[in-house]
């Protein structure tokens, strides 16, 4: 019998949840905005609830790069879903863990008694990330607006530079760490070097991700996905980034993307840029009684940790260690794990770190190693390398999916965790009840 300690004073339950299929970014603008994605799956989710949309106490949505028309995207989603004007809604941003932050914020408000029923989750349309112009051009436009006569305008015309028109893809900027000046992929290379993760190991994990997701699609276990429809008559039913035709050989041929020609992190062993949304309904015991809601899982505890941004990929190691300490649980108590596959290197690095005495002592301040996470309990139905990583949505996807995995496979405890750009890790412990 494990003796467990929690950091939520009132129990918080995951009642239900859904997500869109994750749609690979092909280069063009995707068919859905971040709002559209959350509304589409939210409509489906709400349709089968025994309570009306107006019954929520609040709506909390994680999103990293909403478009300029989506200020406080949580409120827009809430109103478009018909939750009504009286339901407050807000947006959270914690980079790759925004979806988990939304769930954590919801859980906290339920646990202290502020809320009883909350819609939480995340959404991201990475294909809709804004394209910007350089600051110099913005200054020039400001001057142009103030120019009063022809001479002044003519002068400004001559000051115009071709470089002003070079667009800045905000998405790529977002994936660069402004503190250490590294791209996310480069931080993964750092992790790989530290723990001697080989290219072979990374590609094996990537292949397993695709194979697991394909099997799950064949077995129809991804019941949380709701089909969505664009305006041109297409239905989207499954994650479309998964590759049935991939192999170690094919993955091995890909060139290193971030540190060419020396590195090992490739497009094939990194998560995909995707559009997607995931939502969960969280409830207190009171709400469950009131609406006679089914229970999918209980949120036991959440932990957040910080670390060197240049090694942000080890965030899961730090967060897991903290979470296990908080709850007095061992690695062996956890039946299933979801570690977000931002990069295969960083997933494997995190596993190694938790089993590395030196790292555990110097970085986590522990006398002994945390333990070895068994690979056959990790991301058992695929991960972000196969299905993609729509930043804001991922945390909610992992949590919701883990709840389903625990139910389907009759596990008790599960941990979902992810690394966070900027040097953080987040982890949630849930229990199948």
């Amino acid at each position: 019998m494990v003796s467990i300690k929690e950091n939520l004073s009132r129990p918080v339950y995951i009642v239900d949840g859904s997500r869109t299929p994750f749609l690979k970014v092909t280069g063009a603008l995707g068919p859905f905005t971040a709002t559209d994605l959350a509304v589409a799956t939210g409509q489906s989710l709400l349709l089968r609830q025994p309570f009306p949309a107006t019954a929520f106490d609040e709506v909390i949505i994680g999103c990293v790069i909403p478009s300029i028309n989506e200020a406080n995207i949580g409120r827009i989603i809430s109103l478009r879903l018909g939750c009504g004007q009286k339901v407050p809604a807000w947006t959270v941003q914690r980079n790759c863990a925004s979806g988990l932050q939304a769930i954590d914020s919801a859980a906290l408000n339920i646990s202290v008694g502020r809320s009883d029923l909350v819609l939480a989750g995340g959404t991201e349309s990475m294909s809709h990330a804004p394209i910007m112009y350089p600051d110099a051009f913005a200054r020039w436009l400001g001057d142009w607006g103030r120019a009063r006569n022809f001479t002044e305008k003519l002068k400004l015309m001559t000051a115009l530079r071709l470089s002003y028109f070079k667009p800045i893809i905000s998405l790529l900027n977002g994936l660069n760490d402004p503190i250490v000046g590294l791209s996310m992929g480069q931080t993964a290379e750092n992790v790989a070097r530290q723990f001697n993760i080989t290219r072979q190991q990374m590609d094996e994990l990537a292949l397993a991700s695709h194979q697991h997701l394909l099997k799950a699609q064949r077995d129809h276990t991804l019941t949380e996905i709701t089909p969505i429809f664009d305006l041109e008559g297409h239905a989207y039913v499954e994650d479309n980034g998964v590759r049935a035709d991939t192999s170690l050989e094919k993955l091995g041929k890909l060139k290193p993307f971030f540190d060419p020609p020396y590195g090992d992190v490739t497009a094939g062993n990194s998560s995909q840029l995707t559009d997607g949304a995931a939502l969960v309904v969280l409830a207190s015991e009171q709400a469950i009684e009131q609406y006679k809601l089914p229970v999918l899982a209980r949120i036991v505890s959440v932990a957040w940790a910080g670390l060197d941004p240049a090694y942000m990929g080890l965030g899961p190691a730090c967060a897991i260690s903290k979470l296990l300490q908080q709850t007095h649980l061992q690695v062996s108590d956890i039946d299933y794990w979801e570690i977000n596959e931002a990069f295969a290197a960083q997933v494997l690095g995190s596993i190694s770190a938790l089993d590395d005495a030196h790292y555990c002592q110097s970085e986590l301040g522990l006398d002994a190693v945390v333990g070895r996470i068994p690979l056959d309990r990790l991301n058992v139905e695929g991960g972000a390398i196969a299905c993609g990583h729509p930043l804001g949505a991922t945390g909610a996807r992992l949590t919701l999916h883990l709840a389903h995995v625990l139910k389907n496979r009759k596990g008790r405890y599960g941990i979902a965790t992810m690394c966070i750009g900027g040097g953080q890790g987040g982890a949630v412990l849930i229990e199948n009840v």
Partner: protein
Amino acid sequence: MSENIVYKNWQVERDAKDIAWLTLRYAEGTTNVLAYEVMLELRTIIETLLQQMPKGVVIQSGYDNGFIAGANIHEFLELKTPQAAYERLRFGQEIFAQLEKITCPTVALINGFCMGGGLELALACRYRIALDDPKTRLGVPEILLGIHPGWGGTVRLPLLIGAPTALDLILSGRGINAKSAKRIGLVDAVVPKREFFRAAEYYIARQPSKHKLRGWLAWSNAKWVRPIVAHFTHRQIAQKANSEHYPAPYAALKLWEQVGPSAQDAFEKEAESVSQLVTRPTAENLIRVYLLQERLKKFAKRQENPPKRVHIVGSGTMGGDIAAWCALQGFQVTVYDQSLPMLANTRKRAYALFSKKLATKVEVNYALDRLIMDTWADTGVGAGVRTADVIIEAVPEKLELKQKVWKIIEETAKPDALLATNTSSIPLATIAEHLKQPPRLLGIHFFNPVAAMQLVEVVSTAQTEENSVQRAFQFLKMINHFPLPVQSSPGFLVNRVLTPYLLEAAALLAEGVSASNIDQAAKQFGMPMGPIEMADIVGLDVCLAVAEYLASYYNWSIPEILRTYVAAGKLGRKTGEGFYKYNQGKKHEVGVSSPNAVNITENAMIDRMIMRMLNEACACWREKIVADADLVDVGMIYGSGFAPFRGGPMHYAQNLGIEIVVQKLRGLQEQYGDRFKPDAGWLSLSD
């Protein structure tokens, strides 16, 4: 120091700024019309104002639904002679002339509909200010009743907005929204509700210059320009309406061309022209049909707890289009289909509909959000069924499937939900066979395309709960459609009367008459579309299925040619070939010259097709499929497009003379067999 004078229909308030606010609240209804009494009071009001001129005059509606819907049509039906009509028109024109002569600024504050006489009143004001609201609608729809504007509309409208746009509005009868009205200069300003009254005060205080025509439009009513414009306009209307069937557009155009809006006697000539039209059969019939439609609309009574959520099971063409239409009209709609591609197609079509009907992207997005694709397949009818107030089943016409679906719906639906099947033929009792409470189920039979066909057959049996029927009426009113109550019998009214006509057209085709000749004959009679083309559009397989189903009840024979085409996979436009061939959306005659082609006159063709329709219409009347002959008429006009200016099949038969109809039928019976056997109902009609 404000003073208030209350008339029966008007209220006149002179406020502290000495502005006279004339508020119309028609006492005999909830919608403003310019009834005789309303006009008389207006004349008195204007006379009083002239005695002590205020700083400004504002004319507004006391009803939220609209400004003024037009003249009182019932009164026009009472005008039996052109002379009486002329006098009534001049009476109205003179009051508006008085209004125009008021020297202080006059403002029409327009909310909601501002149609016909209502717009003509507004045109006599110096300024027009429209409410910025999707419901604001301006137009002169007189042409749709077989007349044209007669209270100065044909004079003031072209002078205000220029001939091309004015002619377009007068000849099409279409209504436009506030923004379009501003763009063409019909209104001076479009303002939000919060600035509505301030805007009126602003125009009175500042007196901005009136709308002026720019560029060539300023010359568009000139004597030498008119023949040129008229020439091209004539061509356009000739494509749309036959001058014998619809004389009004031709008369309106002629009036503008030959008299012109600047002529001394422009108003007298306008009144003369309308008074000639209003007593002609076309106008009489169109007005009658309009009033019959109003009668159908009045079937809906006010009900407690109006429905809010609609659930549709089956998203084929009908189900999907019904769903989209309901969402467009403001309902939250869930639509279920087991096929995801079908749902995807529904959303696509809905988007096209919303983009066409709604002015702004925001409204389109709202409408899209109201239309929820229900993909929860576990029960087979969708998750939305549990919370819906109205449930419409539109699955394929297979009895077993419908029975199965209804069993599940009855178990899952709210106990007070309205349960309706969109069956086009299967009797209600059969579908409801396995239900616990069969009287709950009724039929709501929409016609294709849902967005264009406002008539809906509401099917009931003697057992159907009266309350359900009433709620169906109310629901239809809320989606801007109107009900035709019909008894549950195979084919109900519209399909049953229409099918013999289509079968006769197929028989003619089989005899070797060309498709285009047959269609031409039907159009000559006044049908908006020929029967062969119509069959191709509906789909020959669908036609055959309906015909076979009905034939089994009514003992009709089906021309072999229909079966041959269906067997060959030539199903109509959808397969690229039916009775016509289709190439990139254009239809072409299939060049078959039959060796046994008969020589048949157009009139003989018309007789054969129309007489079968009349005969079946009579049978429906006799069997009391609908309550009376008027409902047969309005049903066939709005359900099948039966030549509206002829007033409907029963009215047409009456006008022709029942004996002549029977005589014709007998003659045809001798020549072609018992399908022309006069119905027993004629006997009681001829008394």
